[in-house]
């Protein structure tokens, strides 16, 4: 499916799910996302992470609601499954969409200004660099007798400083390779946006609407 439409579909469904409380639809979405992830050959390790992390937070949330408020069982189930809907749908999206492909699609199909499209990609490519920077800052602090935890402001001060430096470097790198803001570009690879993508998009949305309508108490 076309990445931009896929993203739009997920955001729309996520929005609906946030406002309407139908647990059967949540479960249906979880099952569909799970099947799609399995078809996309997700690793067991990753699936385990995607399950355990929301499980912890959902359980904590539901537990505290049970102790502290008089929420109905229906509401608790909705809350519990909602987090899984978000995480599983997001998991399916990232599993099946390479960032560069999404960037191309956002630029070509969604007509997003190339500045934003490549800004997003650059931020994504910066991730490993940020991890290395955090490790360096923490090591530098240890050598000076200071322990920086993940919540230490000093750690973020340093990393933000480094990121500002990188953003200048990145701007220079893009300019030197001929990138001009707002200028037309050609595309070595075109991301197809065909009738099938629209059918899938409209069909899935309709299906969710029907489900929501039927499921409403």
């Amino acid at each position: 499916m076309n990445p931009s439409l896929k993203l739009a579909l997920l955001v729309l469904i996520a929005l609906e799910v946030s406002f309407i409380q139908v647990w059967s639809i949540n479960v249906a979405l979880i099952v569909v996302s799970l099947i799609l992830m399995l078809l996309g050959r997700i690793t067991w390790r990753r699936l385990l992470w995607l399950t355990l992390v929301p499980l912890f937070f959902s359980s904590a949330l539901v537990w505290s609601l049970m102790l502290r408020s008089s929420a109905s069982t229906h509401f608790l189930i909705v809350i519990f499954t909602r987090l899984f809907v978000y995480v599983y749908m997001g998991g399916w999206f990232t599993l099946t969409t390479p960032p560069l492909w999404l960037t191309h699609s956002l630029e070509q199909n969604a007509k997003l200004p190339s500045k934003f499209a490549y800004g997003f990609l650059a931020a994504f490519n910066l991730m490993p660099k940020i991890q290395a920077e955090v490790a360096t800052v923490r090591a530098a602090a240890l050598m000076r007798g200071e322990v920086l935890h993940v919540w230490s402001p000093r750690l973020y001060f340093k990393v933000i400083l480094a990121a500002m430096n990188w953003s200048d470097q990145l701007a220079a790198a893009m300019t030197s390779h001929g990138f001009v803001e707002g200028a037309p570009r050609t595309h070595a690879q075109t991301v197809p946006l065909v009738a099938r993508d629209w059918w899938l998009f409209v069909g899935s949305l309709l299906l969710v609407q029907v489900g929501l309508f039927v499921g409403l108490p």
Partner: protein
Amino acid sequence: MATVTVQSLTYTYPKQAHPVLDHLSGTFPTGKFSLLTGVSGGGKSTLLKLIAGLIPMSATPITFDGHPLSAITPTQRASTVAMLFQEPSTQFTMDTVENELRFALENQQVPAEEIADRCDAALDFIGISNLKFRKLMFLSGGEQQKVALAIIVAMDSDVILLDEPFASIDPPTRLILLEKLVALCNDRGKTIILADHDLSGYQQWVDHLAVLADGQLTLLSTAATRERFAAFTPQRLQLTHVQLPNDQLTVCLQGTQLGLAHGDRQLLTPQDLSLYAHRTTLITGPNGSGKSTLFKALVRLGRYQGQLTYRQTDITKIRKRRYARQVGLMFQAASAQFLNVTVAEELALSQKYGDHAYFTPTRIQQLLQQLNLAGRDEQVLYSLSSGQQKKIQLLCMLIMAPDVLLLDEPLKGLDYASIQAVMTILKTVQQDLNLTLILISHQLSGLDDLVDLHLTLADRHLTYQGVSA
């Protein structure tokens, strides 16, 4: 093809009183290899960035065949002028070589069906077709510079600017890149302007040396150029009392079948390595050979193969916090070391946890005097010059007085007087506190008094040099 003409260019950095380029004029002719030299901080990089249009100027006195860069349509600027940066890893936007090449050609609005062929041709010209699908992050500095040059070849830029492009790459790669550049000049009529302070290896290709000094550009005559080249002898290492390690020395760090790699490139073939306590060891070797990678492994910031022990204990079994106080690293980039904003705060942090018995406030003031840094307490660290940053950084790490102090290029960017001061301080502190110093340095003069042991890294192997005692 384009001739670059600069007419009466004056440039002052924001918030500075004196211009770095002062009514500078000069011509870089089509199809010529121009070599630009001058002291560090003399404005070489600034001039190149101005020519490349990376520093915007309102009315630029720089023209390409008579046209200012602003008169050229933005999308065609990259095919007029392109720049290769000093730091190889900072010039890419994409993840792989192929994607970066495509990105550059798309920006130039090359028709989609031509892009693949032009990418292949450019990679082939530089001789790196095998790198096409590789991730840029995992390439060595030399490979990254080759990719950057291939992109410039693909963009078919008329003017190619290079800012100390060989600063972090090994000599064989440097030679290959130079040959490619000369071919681009001679066969394709490109205008090349290369800034470098190391003049070795250029004499057969450059007739006129351009010298940038006091904001002015002077083109030397052929005779004067030859004289300059002849007078330039790369610094030679003069170590008179270096000896091979003997049995009396205590081992502090021991590597067993220690190997190092960068991505899938092996830097050090697994070998046993001993580093000795209470001595000063100098490590030398070509750029990009893995010296800094070794230091990162020693402070547990990088992966390594085999085992590393500190006083007979595996370093992975010592608590990180404790180990970091025993083995410290002075990073090559000063900014990596700083955790605070002002000089006083940074020194105070070191005093808090460091050796305050030896480094009394009086002694620190005295050291600051010696390093010509007195009275800068309230200054923001990042507004200091790179040399001043380097000196503060050294002082901070010395006050911590770890048993083993690793120094990665401690003299980089320092002037002569500072080098002398730093050497004296290192020598005194090392003797007073009986520290173990291990240093990497490209700056070789003045080290003789300090160094006891000398390790060279060549052909993926570390070997001790010197005569046996």
